[in-house]
């Protein structure tokens, strides 16, 4: 459905076309059935982005492609434009500020856009830049939490029909409350998330079609991220069946690995490997790993060596560091903000000489925006990214875990602790 309902508009990056862009978003959002408030937020976000771009163009005639997509449980707007229309540093959310200027921090266009969206991501794709923002559709809150039901008959894997998914979501919200992601509070939304194809679910029912267990995951190209497992009976096999059902569904797909952040205590033993030392991140590969070449700066090389040894991962670690060669002047970083979760993930678009300062500006801006969790995903498959390691380390990022096959190579996840910031 989402592909067939996509709307695309090409318009000049000029302030005069602001009403055209916002009208397009407004009309499309209405056609998608988005609520008035969400529609307004999306219009504001587009207005901020187009104003931001128009104000920074050095001249010439450039086009912006506005792409709207109905994600069923959300609406997505992507602003795409050639990456050469702006200087490299302009793509940073901090591009207009000096780190010391509190007033200008508050006025950054992309951060303003981010405030009205639920998710914002700035990224590079081929020769284009993309600013993507997402507004979630509003769903009614959970009406009633179903009473727990005694198991009747034997357990079985069930086809995830919408009514079963809604029953599952309501049970998760009832039993696991705030330990489970907030979307479980809206069963209709969870059913739409599965119907969109973005998410998958493995459900275990008893003989009377009562939900006894389940696990929920977000599909990705190479990596899926799961939540759960959630169990509603004393039968130990329920969680095993849910997890095996998930693995069987993901087998023979493009997904190479499955990550579970904050697994529940119901996670059966023997299916996953711990990535974070405290067991808060679990991992499992879905295919045989026969090794790759990875790049590491000496600052993080020991951590990677130990990590790979512990995970029995065959890796050829090539150490890289700057040996006085000239780098590009400016850095640019992609950010993926999850405002409801207070989490942001930074990634490198270009590594440049100003990385130390620009990373620092990002941290300051993001902390000021109220983000509690700041992560940097360093792709070990891209040698230029290893060169960022000193700038990240000095700014307080520390290795947290490795996600094998999370990017071009493995992703070294660096976490930023506020008190460690320089």
């Amino acid at each position: 459905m989402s592909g067939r309902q996509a709307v695309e508009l090409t318009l000049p990056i000029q302030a005069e076309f602001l009403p055209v862009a916002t009208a397009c978003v407004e009309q499309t959002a209405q056609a998608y059935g988005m609520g008035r408030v969400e529609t307004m937020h999306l219009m504001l976000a587009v207005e901020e982005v187009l104003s931001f771009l128009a104000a920074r163009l050095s001249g010439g005639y450039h086009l912006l492609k506005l792409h709207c997509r109905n994600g069923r449980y959300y609406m997505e707007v992507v602003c795409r434009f050639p990456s050469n229309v702006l200087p490299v540093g302009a793509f940073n959310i901090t591009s207009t500020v000096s780190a010391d200027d509190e007033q200008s921090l508050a006025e950054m266009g992309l951060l303003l856009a981010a405030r009205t969206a639920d998710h914002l991501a700035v990224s590079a794709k081929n020769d284009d830049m993309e600013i993507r923002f997402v507004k979630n559709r509003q769903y009614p809150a959970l009406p009633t939490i179903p009473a727990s039901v005694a198991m009747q008959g034997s357990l079985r894997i069930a086809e995830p029909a919408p009514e079963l998914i809604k029953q599952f979501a309501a049970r998760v919200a009832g039993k696991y409350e705030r330990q489970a992601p907030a979307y479980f509070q809206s069963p209709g939304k969870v059913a739409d998330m599965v119907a969109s194809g973005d998410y998958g679910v493995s459900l275990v029912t008893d003989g009377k079609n009562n939900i006894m267990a389940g696990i929920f995951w977000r599909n990705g190209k190479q990596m899926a991220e799961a939540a759960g497992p959630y169990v509603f009976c004393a039968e130990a096999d329920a969680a095993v069946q849910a997890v095996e059902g998930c693995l069987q569904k993901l087998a023979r797909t493009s997904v190479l690995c499955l990550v579970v952040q904050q697994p529940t205590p119901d996670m059966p033993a023997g299916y996953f490997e711990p990535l974070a030392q405290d067991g808060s991140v679990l991992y499992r590969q879905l295919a045989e790993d026969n090794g790759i070449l990875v790049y590491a700066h000496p600052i993080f090389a020991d951590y990677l060596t130990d990590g790979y040894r512990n995970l029995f991962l065959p890796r050829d670690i090539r150490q890289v560091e700057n040996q006085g060669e000239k780098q590009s002047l400016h850095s640019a970083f992609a950010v993926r903000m999850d405002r409801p979760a207070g989490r942001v993930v930074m990634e490198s678009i270009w590594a440049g000489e100003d990385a130390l300062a620009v990373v620092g500006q990002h941290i300051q801006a993001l902390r000021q925006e109220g983000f509690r969790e700041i992560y940097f995903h360093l792709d070990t498959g891209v040698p230029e990214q290893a060169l960022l390691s000193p700038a990240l380390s000095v700014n307080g990022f520390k290795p947290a875990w490795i996600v094998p096959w999370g990017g071009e190579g493995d992703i070294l996840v660096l976490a930023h602790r506020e008190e460690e910031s320089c």
Partner: protein
Amino acid sequence: MHPFPPLDMLVPRHIQKIEPYIPSRPDDVLRQMFGCPTIYRLNNNENALGPSPEAIRAIQAVRPEQAAIYPSGDAWHLRQRLAERFHLPPDSFIVGNGANEVIAFVIKAFCQEGDNIITTDRTFAVYEWVAEFSGYEARLVPLTADYSFDDEGMLAAVDARTKIIFLCNPNNPTGTYWNEERLRRFLDRVDGRQIVVVDEAYGEFVAKSDFPNGMELLREYPNLLVFRTFSKMFALAALRIGFLAGQEKIVDVVRRTCVVYSVNSFAQQAAIGALKDADLQIERTRRMVQEARQVLCEELRRLNLPYIAGEGNYVVIRLPMSDTLAYRKLMAQGLMVRSMTGFRFPNHIRVTLATVPVMEKLAAGLARIIA
């Protein structure tokens, strides 16, 4: 530079959804990556005894100058020998570049847009893959609780657009099989409405008296096609050669989709050699496999590891850990097994039954990783 082609428009949707299959790296690269001096290949169900004496003689007789000459485009000589061995006309056979190629020939010959094929969820993946990357639906009927093909379920899944039903007998990886009575009953109920492919890639490993010989059923069932390979029992995996057999009228349809000249001369010569002493090869291999199965299963019982040991030269082992982690830990010891998540058997590995000393090494390796 010229503009990059618009792949979104050029590539069909069913191809866009598919990821390429990435085969294992060569052994020398794996040895280096995993830091192990030797690799025992227990992942592909290769025959540890190697080719038969006659097959080796045929390979040694290959002259380098033959490389300049095209092979027989339809494996003419090999088909004469197959005809003699199986008492069928030469035109009942199509030889392919491995059995995988003949799977593609059959699907291409019978399916068109909107059609489907039926197989099971936990079997050789290539039927499902070829159907899907060709744009046809693969209906996967789950194996029964005792890991056998579900005849009732498969029949229930048939509709007007079902063209082919794939049975792997014995099944890879479970080693379960339909006996002759069950296979006949199934073929009777299909009653010629669909093509039934019985893949007997591991058929020569089965010594049970009730195991059906698909070749002998071909005269009675015109909708039956039987697949065989020289890769497993005959240990010619590197040469990529397999074949299908069926009644000439059906085979003639499949032949229209064949890529001729796809099987090289050396493979054809080696296969002809392999047929000369096929019975010797089958007998000695069965003996090795039986000994290996006995030794390995004893060790698995001692280690408290559940297993599925049916027919074929492989055993599936259930582990108390992720099979992909077990793969890496065993590779570090030079033991290359097949992780089974991709076969929809999470936390299982499949190991090839090889010589007894190698089975003992495997048991020791398993003991180390579960300790």
